[in-house]
């Protein structure tokens, strides 16, 4: 993926560049709003990482102008302001995701990669397929290798999210945000238990596991 990082703090920018670079993405860095906006417009980026507080035009304004000018690359806001209203502002300005500082690098990578997938997967789908696992979004049914799997509604949504981001790492926080719509970090392993129950249903009777645990980061569904 080709990612532009617009962040005025040089250290933070270098860190983001390294983390994303190590995950195999090519990263351009801009230090202020004006040049960031013009570069985002001219370059063909798959995703943007924008700090909310920038000298010149701030992150929200930058993204509004970028969207007004027809820019379509999905954007992730980085911000020290993490309350719900701040997130809502970010999303209203045209952001696709919001990550609060300080964050774990794995969280950043997972979210940026999730953004890239969203950009390419804009076409409405009714079927999701990962290996032998098939999900029919209209009939709300799941089959693996032709065998029907019964899921609770929440498990269905959890699996849908994992399948939409197949091959990518998704973090526990992302799952709580996207599947349960809560923005906080539970201390205990509530999410892990839900994932392991889901795993019991989709992987248990099959030879090849699809749902993998990524240590220190989260989970990945992959054939």
């Amino acid at each position, binding site marked *: 993926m080709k990612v532009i990082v617009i962040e005025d703090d040089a250290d933070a920018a270098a860190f983001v560049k390294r983390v994303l670079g190590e995950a195999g993405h090519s990263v351009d860095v801009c230090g202020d709003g004006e040049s960031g906006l013009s570069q985002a417009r001219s370059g063909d980026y798959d995703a943007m990482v924008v700090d909310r507080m920038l000298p010149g035009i701030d992150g929200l304004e930058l993204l509004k102008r970028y969207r007004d000018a027809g820019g379509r690359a999905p954007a992730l806001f980085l911000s020290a302001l993490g309350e719900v209203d701040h997130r809502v502002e970010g999303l209203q300005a045209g952001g696709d995701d919001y990550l609060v500082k*300080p964050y774990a690098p794995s969280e950043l990578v997972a979210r940026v990669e999730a953004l890239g997938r969203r950009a390419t997967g804009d076409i409405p789908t009714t079927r999701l397929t990962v290996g032998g696992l098939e999900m029919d979004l209209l009939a709300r049914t799941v089959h693996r290798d032709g065998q029907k799997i019964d899921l609770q509604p929440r498990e269905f949504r959890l699996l849908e999210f994992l399948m939409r981001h197949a091959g990518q790492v998704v973090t526990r926080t992302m799952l709580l945000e996207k599947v349960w719509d*809560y923005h906080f970090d539970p201390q*205990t392993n*509530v999410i892990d238990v839900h994932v392991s129950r889901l795993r019991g249903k989709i992987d248990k009777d099959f030879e090849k596991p699809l749902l993998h645990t990524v240590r220190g980061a989260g989970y990945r569904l992959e054939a």
Partner: protein
Amino acid sequence: MKIGRLPALVRTTTFRLALLHASIFILFSASLLAYLYYETAGHLSRQAEAELNAEFQELSAANRGGFDRLNQAVTERSGARGKFFYLLQDSTGQKSAGDFDFLPAPAPETQVVDVNFDYEVRDTNGRPVRRSAQGRISRLAGGGVLMVAYDVGQLGEMNRRITEVVWRSAVVGFVLSLIGGVVISRSAAQRAEQLARTAEEVMAGDLTRRAPVDGSGDEFDRLSEQLNAMLSKLERLVISSRSAGDSIAHDLRSPLTRLRNRLEGGLREDKVDGQRAALTKSIEEVDGVLDTFNAVLRLSRVQAGATGSFRRINVTGITDELAELYQPACEEKNLTFSYLPGGELFVQADRDLIAQALSNLLDNAVKYTPEGGSVTLSVRRLPGGEAEVAVSDSGPGIPPEDRDRAVERFVRLEQSRSLPGSGLGLSLVLAVAEAHRGRLMLDSAGGAPPNAGLAARLILPSA
């Protein structure tokens, strides 16, 4: 009193009030004295005036009988040496009768005119004495002139004395009121000064200073008491935030030390696998530090009231979701999870904050309840209309004497130190409760010791 202090004194509210009081006092005493004057000196002059009128009327009656008749009447009266003295002139201006020799003012062409004038008489030793008189001059129908006057010397003296007394009393009253005002103002200013000094000392860093309370229970005492109460609260907050700062430092030191050791261990590791393991452990350690950090930030924001989008929401909606979220975790640990929903219960709240608070309570319950125990999440409406969400468990609970401390920042009670946690969970629940004008109650769940259990109840005002 130093002169240099006067302007400050004049600026005080109390002084202005004293001045106002003095003015009102003057106004009242002036009215009182005016009334006194009216009833005394005024009465006398009115009486003299009335007598003069009567005298004039009688003479007018005599005049209707002809000039000679009048002449005779005036002559008689002059001879009687009464209160009045007279002068009658004929139409040519010659004195015709009376005991006065000249007209003090020119006679009017028609009608009458009142006059005030001075004249000289000789006393018994033949020395001239100036006297004041008041009278009336009238042009008679036949062209003559009649004057009747009376001596006002005695009356004038009385008037003058009364007037003098009135003015003197006014001046003395004004000065006394001013002095009183200054005295009151000075004592008030002094107490205000004491308050200001206390505030200055506190600002200079001595949080133990308190404003003096003299026990009189007046406004200044009440103000001092309020100020002292505020200072005590401030002192407690400063101490607690200072200790929170210490706790943060202390709480982060151990994981950071562990992190450093791991990284160093990783550096000494020759094999890639060992290095990888050390780094993975290090990352977990850093994630823990980040979690603590985020929790501290979040707690500060909630406590500062700088967060949350409050809207009318159904608490049961949140508990439904949390029950679903936590049930598997409970079953995983072999805990019996019960959920007792309480129908629709609307509160004015921030969904995420409430969910976070309840999730902290559920996390605690899952963490501290031994295997085979039970966790119950229940929602109900209290008789007062408030919404109560309770999380109770069959764990060890919190001894009554530790319950207040349990909600303080970074406090980790003895039995919990072996388990992971930041010591901020209950602090956040309390902060969320307070941000919603609600309460957090910690009680025993009523089990038999050592597993008395904890019943944590979050009570929110209904909307």
